[in-house]
């Protein structure tokens, strides 16, 4: 597999930053950055990461199931993550998540038919004092109301998936 030039450069730096012989350390960062480009964790990607880090595909595969940001099937172009953990719950996070489900017509870790949106009820994303919080791809949005969420979702640009994910 060949990745984009900037990602190849990033991977080269990653493999060099750990102590000699400890390239397995790059597995998780490599997976998450590669997922942004490839769209999901595919069998081919697992084999590629294993090859580059000098481990078996199984050693990569067992990691994939553990980390909640790694997905085996593609999420939407815009992955909408709504936090409902306690600080958000107290100020309307659960209602906001219900609103998002109704608006998008999908549930937890589901993707809209056009592939534009996916939704996930997430655990604390570290925006407690500015709750309720939503993260769309890697962009944080604070003190989100139902109206604000509608506006956000209606105004997302149509093109450049990677630009959004790799901001």
């Amino acid at each position: 597999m060949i990745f984009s030039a900037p990602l190849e450069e990033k991977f080269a730096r990653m493999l060099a930053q750990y102590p000699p012989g400890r390239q397995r350390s790059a597995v998780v960062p490599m997976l998450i950055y590669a997922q942004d480009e490839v769209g999901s964790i595919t069998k081919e990607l697992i084999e590629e990461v294993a090859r580059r880090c000098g481990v078996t595909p199984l050693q990569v595969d067992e990691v994939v199931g553990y980390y909640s940001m790694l997905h085996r099937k593609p999420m939407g172009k815009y992955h909408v993550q709504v936090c409902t953990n306690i600080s958000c719950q107290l100020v309307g996070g659960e209602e906001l998540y219900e609103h998002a489900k109704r608006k998008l017509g999908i549930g937890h870790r589901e993707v809209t038919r056009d592939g534009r949106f996916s939704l996930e009820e997430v655990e604390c994303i570290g925006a407690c004092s500015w709750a309720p919080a939503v993260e769309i791809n890697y962009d944080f949005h604070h003190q989100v109301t139902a109206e604000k969420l509608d506006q956000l979702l209606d105004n997302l640009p149509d093109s450049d998936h990677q630009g959004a994910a790799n901001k």
Partner: protein
Amino acid sequence: MLYNEPSPLETRVVSKRFGLPNSASLDTFLATGGFEAFHKAREMKPEQIIEEVKVSALRGRGGAGFPTGLKWSFVPRNSPKPKYIIVNADESEPGTCKDRLLMEYDPHQLIEGILIAALAVDSHAGYIYIRGEYRYLIELMDRAIAEAYAKGYLGQNIAGTGWDFDLYTHSGAGAYECGEETALLDSIEGKRGIPRMKPPFPAVAGAWGCPTLLNNVETFSAVPAIIRDGGKAFADLGTPKNGGTRLVCISGHVNKPGVYELPLGYPMMKAINEVAGGIPHGRKLKAVVPGGSSCPLLRAEECDIAMDYDTLAKAGSMLGSGGMVVMDETTDMVRVALRIMRFYAHESCGWCIPCREGTAWLRKILSRMVEGNGRREDVALLGELSKNMLGRTFCALGDAAAMPTMSIVEKFAEDFEKYLVPEAVLV
């Protein structure tokens, strides 16, 4: 732009650059006393640096509150193995959102703190483990690190002092458990984040089997002030054995939620009513989570308390990670308990059976209640199950799930009443 207005009641030490123009740039950092502490530390013996940190009474800001100087003294300086510095920036304790700000507004303060720690334990390489959701901060730290390299504040012969140090970021990918230090070490080695048996502690055998100094972002960020102004000046800001200030993340039912830097020992009610502007709609206080969701909750009448590690421990709770969640009288504690347990059940790594099974069963019982099928004996069952998880797991996640649950069952028993169906009469 800051995420919330600062309060005039704050004592700003680690947050002193927040809000300055270009506060994340090396130029701003150098113009405001940056790297003075590193130069001073370079003139000190390692033991003197560690002694100064001990005098400061700085305690781990990640949650456990372990004395930082003592932790540093455990690293075998003379070991022939390389020694590593690892920064825990996996901030994910519900209620906690402060390390974000330290990296966003003052990344070079963190870098300077890391470098001083490196001098103390004779380390020449460090890694900042940042949770995957904080991608913008990984990029921001990468830029700060690149700037520091370009201007000679990282790499070889740092600032002309002859000290070499390399610093890197490492992305997580979504796992609360990786905030636990030994699980973080497994994670940085490219594995599932499973906690390790201790001892050996990370100070002796940490990353890649080498001596490792692992602290939270805020802990490292406090070090430059301690070295620059002396450990005593820092200690004097707080209460005995609880030195300095900390970033308190106030969330929930308050008029001005936000992250505020307050001295240790600050009165909790003053933090709620004055710093955070009180509770909206004239409602009464019901409960407070003092330091992240892992802490036993306090009832309103217990909140007339000084916020330091020892006082909260005496009151049966913890100062934890600084995530203070305020709940007013309308709060349904059973729903809070369920939300907390859904979190721990999701995040349990599954390594220890009492945690894996305990969190799942507690979640099921609480769900059953909220769905309207609670049985009277369920309340006692919640308490008993939680109690049996305590102290029976490798890491603190099991305890972290059990403790708030036990406190809710004990202190808010009346909230469970409405969820219990009348006992069936057997004929």
